[in-house]
């Protein structure tokens, strides 16, 4: 991978002695693992019944009315579920056995606040705000040193990546770059400030990895997918990455809103897969949301905050082409609190199990470290490895 980009000028040009110590060539020895994990968090509570529709459930049409008809136009995942028509790239991966869905899954959270639920799915704690760091950060600590570079594709570091282990963030901007001379002096300016100096070093390293992108923001899903792949590719690429996906809180006019959000997610994933090339064989992609939505539409052609939803596993190591679910049914008595899809599979168990298998970790230890205080056992058998 060529590192000759505009950032290199920082290091090669002028009196750059102090900066040279921060050069990625030195900071990154060869990665100790080739395995990669991309975690996509759908913020706002994605509707699993729209993503992967249980058209074979006799109560689905009764509950969802005209939405159920549209669900029939999606590709068949099996005799029971259809995949939303806007998920064409995901459907392709599913057909080739490289994508699996997990349905009727939820974290241990049973209330309906986005913010508490996102705190849980990012911190990995069993109660909101009980755990201060993020589970992806703790995962970094479980991986071999130097092979565990972790990055958020965002201007700031989300909670899931915050914690004791060093992580970083990157997002393209349209600001003119600071001059090499100023950058060099800022390094000196921050040298006696532990927080600022470590942020600054990390920033310079990540910018170098990203290379000379023409992107100015993360609005284009396809370009974002390509950028994510470029930051994970190569020996020095990130081994753990988190991407945030927005636009799932569909209280009103849900079909259009979900349709657009799924289309963007699909474009992102498709471009990511293509651009990742051979590294796909070593990659696991997990897509999850904080909770699902109400089973029945509300009064404004949308849905309100619910409980269980659907998650996706993708990548070269996934034992795909199947839906993993202990389907609870949609009869009024089968719903959680008579309104939401009933959770029958702990999301934490799915995440810990898949990630343990992917990185060859002990599943029980992964469960305890990433999601402390759970009674569920890590679910294994999700990957082919």
């Amino acid at each position: 991978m060529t590192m000759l980009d505009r950032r290199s000028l920082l290091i090669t040009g002028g009196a750059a002695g102090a900066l040279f110590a921060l050069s990625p060539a030195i900071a990154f020895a060869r990665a100790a693992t080739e395995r990669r994990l991309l975690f996509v968090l759908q913020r706002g509570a994605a509707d699993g019944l729209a993503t992967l529709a249980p058209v074979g459930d006799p109560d689905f049409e009764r509950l969802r009315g005209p939405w159920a008809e549209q669900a029939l136009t999606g590709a068949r995942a099996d005799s029971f579920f259809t995949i939303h028509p806007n998920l064409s790239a995901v459907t392709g991966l599913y057909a080739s056995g490289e994508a699996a869905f997990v349905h009727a899954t939820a974290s241990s959270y049973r209330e309906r606040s986005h913010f508490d639920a996102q705190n849980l799915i990012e911190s990995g704690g069993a109660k909101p705000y009980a755990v201060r760091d993020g589970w992806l950060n703790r995962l970094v600590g479980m991986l071999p040193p130097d092979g565990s570079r972790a990055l958020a594709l965002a201007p700031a570091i989300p909670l899931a990546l915050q914690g004791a282990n060093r992580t970083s963030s990157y997002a393209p901007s349209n600001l003119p770059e600071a001059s090499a001379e100023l950058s060099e002096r800022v390094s000196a300016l921050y040298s006696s400030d532990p927080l600022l100096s470590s942020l600054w070093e990390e920033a310079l390293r990540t910018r170098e990895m990203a290379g000379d992108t023409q992107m100015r923001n993360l609005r284009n899903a396809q370009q974002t997918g390509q950028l994510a792949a470029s930051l994970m590719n190569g020996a020095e690429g990130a081994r753990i990455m988190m991407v945030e996906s927005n636009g799932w809180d569909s209280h009103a006019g849900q079909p259009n809103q979900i349709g657009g959000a799924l289309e963007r997610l699909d474009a992102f994933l498709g471009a990511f897969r293509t651009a990742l090339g051979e590294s796909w064989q070593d990659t696991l992609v997990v897509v999850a949301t904080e909770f699902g939505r109400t089973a029945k539409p509300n009064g404004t052609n949308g849905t309100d905050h619910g409980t269980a939803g659907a998650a996706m596993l993708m990548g070269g190591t996934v034992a795909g082409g199947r839906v993993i679910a202990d389907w609870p049914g949609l009869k009024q008595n089968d719903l959680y609190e008579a309104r939401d899809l009933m959770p029958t599979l702990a999301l934490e168990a799915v995440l810990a199990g898949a990630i343990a298998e992917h990185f060859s970790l002990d599943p029980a230890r992964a469960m305890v470290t990433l999601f402390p205080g759970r009674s569920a056992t890590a679910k294994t058998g999700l990957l082919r490895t």
Partner: protein
Amino acid sequence: MTAVTIAWNRFGLGARPTDRPPADPARWVMSQLERFDVRPAAIAARPTTAEGVAELTEFLTMRRQARQMQSVDPMDKPSATARRDIQQSLMDDMAARGLVAIQSDTPFAERLVHFWANHFAVSVAKRQTSGLVGPHEFEAIRPHIMGSFRDLLQAAVLHPAMLTYLDQAQSTGPNSPLAQRAARRQAREAGINENLAREIMELHTLGVGGGYSQADVTEFARAMTGWTVAGLPRARQATLLPNSAAWAGYQHEPGAKTVMGRRYNEEGAKQSLAMLDHFATHPSTARHIATKLARHFASDDPPPAMVARLERAFLESNGDLPTVYRALVASPEAWSNDAPKFRTPWDWSIAALRAVGMEQIPSRNFAGMLRELGQVCWGPAAPKGYDDIAASWAAPDALIRRVEVAERLARQAGPRDAMALAQALFPDALNDGTAAAIRRAESGTQALALLLASPEMMRR
């Protein structure tokens, strides 16, 4: 940090080159509560809530007509110009907010405006709110921050911006006259949307764990049906009330309702107002607001003694906000040097613009700058508003962007004595390292950029 530096930075928006250190910093902060200008010229010149609502309804009408004409992309064609106008107006609102902040002689009061606007966040992430989010702060927040929390709450959550943002305007009681009429015509069933009701309880008043259940949320949502925005398709005949809220009785779910153990008789709009009043003075609300204020002004980990003091001030004064602010300024924890707050992008931008003595704000550049720094003005991703802790803002890429902006601002600001400026902005509080970096800089521009990017400027 000295008391002057804390007054200027932690309680204020950063010093300007012409500022002179106050003799009594705490008194200077406190005096701003009386000197606050509710409607400075830059804001008085902006469109009102009523104009924002008119713009929105006109836009929705045009969009509906476009749909009826079966244009390929209903969001485009005839309404593209209208959308551009709304966008420009939003950027001008943002610039007006920035201008008031950089010019203000009562920066503590302006900080309180920003705090409350974020507490009652309406996000431009939902496009329909574009023309209303500015008026929401200017006309619902500003006039009430020196009054009672009860009045502030009512004005903030019943403003058209909030009613639109959290889907309240559409929420319809299943037994309301409107729903019954729809049922007779076999039209689509109208129903409850509990989004705003939930966020009022969780975010604006009681807080998580504040003692309410899902049943309370649903019941409160039923009581809230009827609050809407006059002029919207279903609400043409709604009655306009003060603060631009509108009541459509024909959308309201009739009947007595019980929320958190209290029974409320059917009294139309008064029913939900009584519930709001109950929440506004509830002990859970006092705790929630006290915690947020202590976190904002003292430390990411709110000092328990300080929270308890603010909570008491809130409860004993029945939610009189100046009483709570006085308890805040009187709290020694807020004047402690131990854990300075990491500035948010908004705070840092305003402090940097004040530091170089900027007097004008080009609207497009200002909105763009905030976006690139990672904090779109009025643009949090969720109704919770922007986070208020260092972990959310102190990130590598975010820092590099501040340095980039610092260099650009330094170029625009032109030549000046950066060392003298540094000493004026941080009297007795300039780090040796920053002073050395400024002294050794190879140009005045570079020296100024280093000052703007210095550790002192990153924290407050």
